[in-house]
């Protein structure tokens, strides 16, 4: 459905929504971060958060189960699912929401990840589109996205000056609007036209571009053994910033954290893992098929622009620009991809 909400009524709507837990961007030590907030702390004026809200649905540490020896010496295992708690992520950017929809593909399909879906099903995504690009390295339109894409979103808000143009795309989204029906009005034809032109206009404001992105996946196929990876990774320091800040990276590790050896007690946990780390894909023999930083950069690029495309027919990159903005040595994924595209 499509509705108009005046900015005056906005706080009233938020107050209604606040019956459940709300995550929204707040400033924490000069950085925007998605945190649990009360209704008064919500704003739609913010730049890109340092981390995407991925961390809410796919936390860096997820408890799977706890195990122990009971008094008789027999093992006991208890499953630990995430708690029942409905929540709203308010103010997610369209690129980050698209990242969530990519993760849905990975954790769904033939094998449903119960931990992921327990969290995912309890959260409603309310997006705020980008009238102006929130980062100097935004390039969503180059990877099939847009500043007002609604992929993955339940609700999308567009700032029209005095009003918000509210679009809902799912039943979950409808529910949020229906909670305070009286605050919303039907859009007039002029407002619809304004919305379209505003969306079109926003697409022309992107600060970064990657041309001919579709040429990249077939090109990558022939570049597995190319020298390009050595050259492009020379300055890489092998930290995990690019992938830990990425709204689509989803690799994880599972380990047992022993808290007591006698009697045995511990937890099995899932933690984020990172293809840039030296022990990633290390075999138990000690051999690592990706022994150097060139092969790790290759993995990051190939996963996003070849393997994921082959499996899910999508780039596993939403153009948020975080990896570019925060790379300590200026490795720029757009420049790397341009070199791949133009490689002869």
């Amino acid at each position, binding site marked *: 459905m499509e509705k108009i909400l005046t900015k005056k009524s906005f706080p009233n709507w938020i107050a209604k929504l606040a019956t459940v837990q709300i995550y929204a961007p707040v400033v*924490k*030590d*000069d*950085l925007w971060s998605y945190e649990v907030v009360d209704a008064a702390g919500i704003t739609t004026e913010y*730049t890109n958060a*340092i*981390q995407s809200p991925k961390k809410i649905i796919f936390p*860096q*540490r997820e408890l799977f189960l706890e195990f122990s020896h009971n008094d008789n010496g027999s093992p006991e295992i208890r499953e630990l699912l995430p708690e029942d708690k409905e929540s709203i992520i308010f103010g997610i950017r369209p690129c980050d929401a698209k990242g969530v929809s990519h993760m849905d593909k990975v954790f769904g399909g033939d094998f449903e990840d119960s931990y992921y879906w327990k969290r995912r099903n309890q959260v409603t995504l309310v997006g705020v589109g980008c009238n102006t690009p929130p980062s*100097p*390295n935004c390039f969503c339109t180059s990877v099939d996205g847009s500043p007002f894409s609604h992929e993955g979103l339940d609700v999308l808000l567009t700032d029209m000056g005095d009003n918000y143009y509210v679009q809902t795309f799912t039943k979950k989204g409808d529910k949020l609007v229906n909670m305070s029906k009286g605050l919303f009005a039907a859009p007039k034809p002029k407002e619809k036209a304004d919305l379209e032109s505003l969306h079109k206009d926003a697409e022309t404001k992107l*600060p970064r571009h990657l041309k001919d992105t579709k040429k990249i996946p077939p090109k990558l196929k022939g570049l597995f053994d190319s020298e390009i990876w050595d050259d492009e990774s*020379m*300055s890489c*320091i*092998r*930290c*995990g*910033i690019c992938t*830990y*800040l990425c709204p689509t990276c989803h690799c994880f*590790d599972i*380990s047992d*954290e022993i808290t007591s050896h006698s009697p045995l007690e511990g937890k099995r*946990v899932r*933690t984020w*893992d*990172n293809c840039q*780390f*030296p*022990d990633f894909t*290390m075999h*138990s*023999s*000690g051999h690592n098929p990706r022994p150097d*930083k060139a092969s790790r950069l290759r993995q990051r690029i190939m996963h996003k622009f070849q393997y994921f495309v082959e499996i899910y027919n999508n780039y596993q990159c939403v153009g948020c620009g975080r990896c*570019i*903005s*925060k*790379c*300590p*040595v*200026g490795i*720029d994924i*757009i*420049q790397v991809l341009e070199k791949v595209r133009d490689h002869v």
Partner: protein
Amino acid sequence: MVNLDDLKKEALNLLKDEKVKYIIGYTEGSNGTSAAPAFIKNPEDTDKLVWNPGCFHNLTRFLRDEKKRKAREKHPDERPVGIVVKGCDSRAINVLLQEKYIKRDDVFILGVSCESTGVIDEKKVAKKLKGKKAQKIEWDTNRNLVVTTEDGTTKIPADEVLAERCVECPVHSPVVYDIFFGDKIKRTTDAQFKSVEKIENLSQKEKWDFWKKQFDKCIRCYACRSVCPMCYCDECVVDTISFAVTADTTAEEKAQRIKWIEKSPTPSETFIYHIIRAIHLAGRCIDCGECERVCPLDIPIRFLNKKLEKEAKSLFDYEVGFDPDQLSLVSSFKDEDPEDFIR
């Protein structure tokens, strides 16, 4: 003033005469104010070299990669690597020499003076620019940062945008080099440990609350470890496999390996990581500040290193990175060393 053309010319000659394998320097970055490390092999690429207030990276960190690459080669090229260093970076070279990690012949050092300024703190500049992207930054002769954006140029006094480590820097120009660029200005500072006093003056509880809040932000990307020129261990306690596995290592040994630290970003594990990192740098850190600069969550971890640097100086009169022949802090003692803190 540092003349960039002189630097380019020297780099060109070094590569033309095949005196160095390649040159590690700075080039234009795509990311606003920051320069980017460059690895120049071809003489014609020396024109890409830059020297500007965004050259904050400590390039000596890449000597570790060079050493590893060389170890893998059957017939390694024994020529040195050319490397551009600032004052702080040059002290890192001295520590690497002191620890016998590199040999003096492994590097040809192009030392560049910071003169009366240093490098900028990107975050301070970003605040001043309020979202605008810098197209060019340079120092003028009156200690102002001249920033060019799409709206024209603005001048910002150096003291408002300099990296804190530059304000507290005791050297400002390379202490070891093969060729020197710029003016050898002698600048002294009485504020070498000023920033750390802010934390020292807190009560124990306030200190705990401060670090608890800071480390809660940590996502354990290990950028602070990875960027450090001194963090060159082959085996690091934070990696899950932190010991060498060979064909003879049994499954039992692998299963029984000591796990020093869990991957979970819980308070205990994150505290331990940061404390281990800091302690391992006692008497080795030269305060290039890279660990703090690269942190995506802005955790002020330089305080930890700075405190240890201060302790080393006040307790043992030990200063890091000035003399490649001095004994290391933690593996030497003098008769006059204080011992009243040992109980």
